[in-house]
């Protein structure tokens, strides 16, 4: 598998605190990679560095052969990197359809106005929001707003989609629906990096997981392997959960 995204020695400091310290890993084309870690591990900071919201202090980030570390967000989006925000950031005065259509006008998609709405309907269908396309954002529930985040990012036609805790705050039924959505998006040929807190999600959809802890890569491997790793258990999961998981 060739690497679509390659992160090498990325460091990001805020004052004296290194939120990311020499983080390195690759994401293969067509993969779903999970990035997990306790609060403050640097997961969102990493995502911000890849999407251009932050400029890393050191290290290189390569996407599809282009060096993107320190590039502005719009240029990275244009290359085909889409992302969602943990705290959703919809275009509040617009309908769901308009939100997705704006995505289709920009990014790697760059559709003409006349075709943007058809593309918006397509991605809303994919995330399961076809019936709510004409609703204004104000009347969408939180799970729907999270779906809309994904739809807007998808509308830009990304090759790589960075999902920042799209399952956080959802109830078990909603998590299942969201998992199905992630699988559907993945089947459509999009490589996914999934930042998550909810263990079930990572185990359910990822073949490979990277564990961050205090800004460093603690472990990397299959979900089962990583979850058996003593350091990971100590840092993050707590022995009880791991024992149950391994035993079950």
């Amino acid at each position, binding site marked *: 598998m060739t690497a679509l995204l390659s992160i090498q020695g990325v460091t990001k400091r805020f004052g004296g605190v290194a939120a990311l310290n020499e983080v390195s890993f690759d994401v293969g084309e067509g993969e779903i990679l999970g990035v997990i870690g306790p609060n403050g591990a640097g997961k969102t900071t990493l995502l911000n560095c890849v*999407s*251009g*919201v932050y400029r890393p202090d050191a290290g290189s980030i390569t996407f599809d052969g282009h060096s993107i570390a320190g590039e*502005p*967000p*719009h240029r*990275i*989006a*244009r290359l085909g990197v*889409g*992302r969602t*925000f943990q705290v959703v*950031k*919809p*275009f*509040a*005065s*617009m309908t769901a359809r308009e939100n997705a*259509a*704006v*995505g289709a*006008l*920009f*990014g*790697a998609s760059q559709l003409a*106005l006349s075709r943007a709405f058809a593309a918006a309907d397509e991605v809303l269908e994919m995330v399961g929001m076809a*019936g*709510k396309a*004409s*609703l*204004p954002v104000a*009347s969408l529930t939180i799970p729907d707003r999270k779906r809309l985040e994904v739809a*807007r*990012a998808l*509308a*830009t036609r990304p090759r790589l989609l960075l999902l920042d805790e799209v399952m956080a705050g959802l109830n078990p039924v909603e998590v299942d629906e969201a998992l199905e959505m992630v699988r559907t998006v993945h089947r459509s040929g999009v490589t996914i990096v999934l930042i998550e807190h909810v263990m079930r999600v990572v185990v359910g959809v990822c073949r490979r997981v990277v564990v961050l802890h205090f800004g460093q890569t603690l472990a990397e491997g299959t979900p089962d392997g990583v979850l058996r790793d003593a350091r990971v258990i100590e840092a993050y999961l707590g022995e009880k959960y791991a024992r149950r998981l391994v035993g079950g």
Partner: protein
Amino acid sequence: MSAAMPPPSSETILVERPRLLDRRRLRRLLVLLLVLGAVLVLLAPLTATDQADSLGAPQLVDRSQIRILTTVAMFVVMASAWNLVGGLTGYSSFGNVAFFGLGAYTCAVAVDAHRLHLPMAAAIALAPLVPAAFAALVGLPLLRLRGHYFAIATLGTAVAVGEVVKNVDYLGGATGLFPPILHRADLLFLYLMVGAALLAVLVSRLILRSRFGYGLIAIRENEEAAGVIGVNTTMYKVGAFAVAAALTGLAGGLFALWNSFINQELGFSLDFNIQMILMAVLGGAGTLFGPVLGAIVLELLIQNLAGRSDVAVYAQIGLGLLLAVTVIFVPRGIVAFFGGGSRLSVAHLRRSLRETGV
């Protein structure tokens, strides 16, 4: 509504948007009104010319009304231009009068016999360019600020530019500049200013219906999200600022030639600065015709009330009240009021009457 009826699902209520139809009808009505108004504005003054006078045609407007109409058109340009940045992009500029002043001085310097001594057409062509270049230059740092900081910084910039202009001898210093007086030119300037107003509306319309316009709205709604979906936020913001500056500068240039006099107080008038914002907000910031309506309504009020000494005080109070009421109850302006976007709107009232079965 009877109690036996099942509660409607939230979706059906929300999907139904009777507003859409109203909005379309409203737009048609607005276009019709504007066309009628434009025809009247363009033809009525012809009855005030000497030729019409000698033919004995009835005079539909007197000369002072031509002046008022020209001023209204000037504010249509400025309010529409402000709307591109303040309404569409969500950056409330309190310094757009700087562009007006720069355009005015550009024209005045260009036609001055002791300075550039260019023909009037060349001066008018230059008037948008200088403010646009200035906006692009100061926009790069200013548009990194948001909210109150942006408002204060733009206001400070406008005041500073005015002070600099006042202290440069080449620009006439505190005395100002005196472009040559053109005799019997009030009709010419009315048509030029109306032309500028039509241009401002046309440019706004083109922007609203383009990728550029959607990018600006995305910036207003959430700048960080706009960036990561691929909007070049810096370029878009500076671009909108420069277009607004060009239009405002054109109005300023025409004003300087029309008025045959420009100084710092006229060119960088804080009254103009506030008025163009009020007009856009009153009419409906972010809409195409809102600023146009706001400019017409407010400027006619100001000209007909505030100018008369007997009611001037009450007019001031009235304008203040009007603004307060607008901001509190119809924050999206007159257009939203008739389009159903407000709690106090006509369409909302009709809808709630229908729903409660009255």
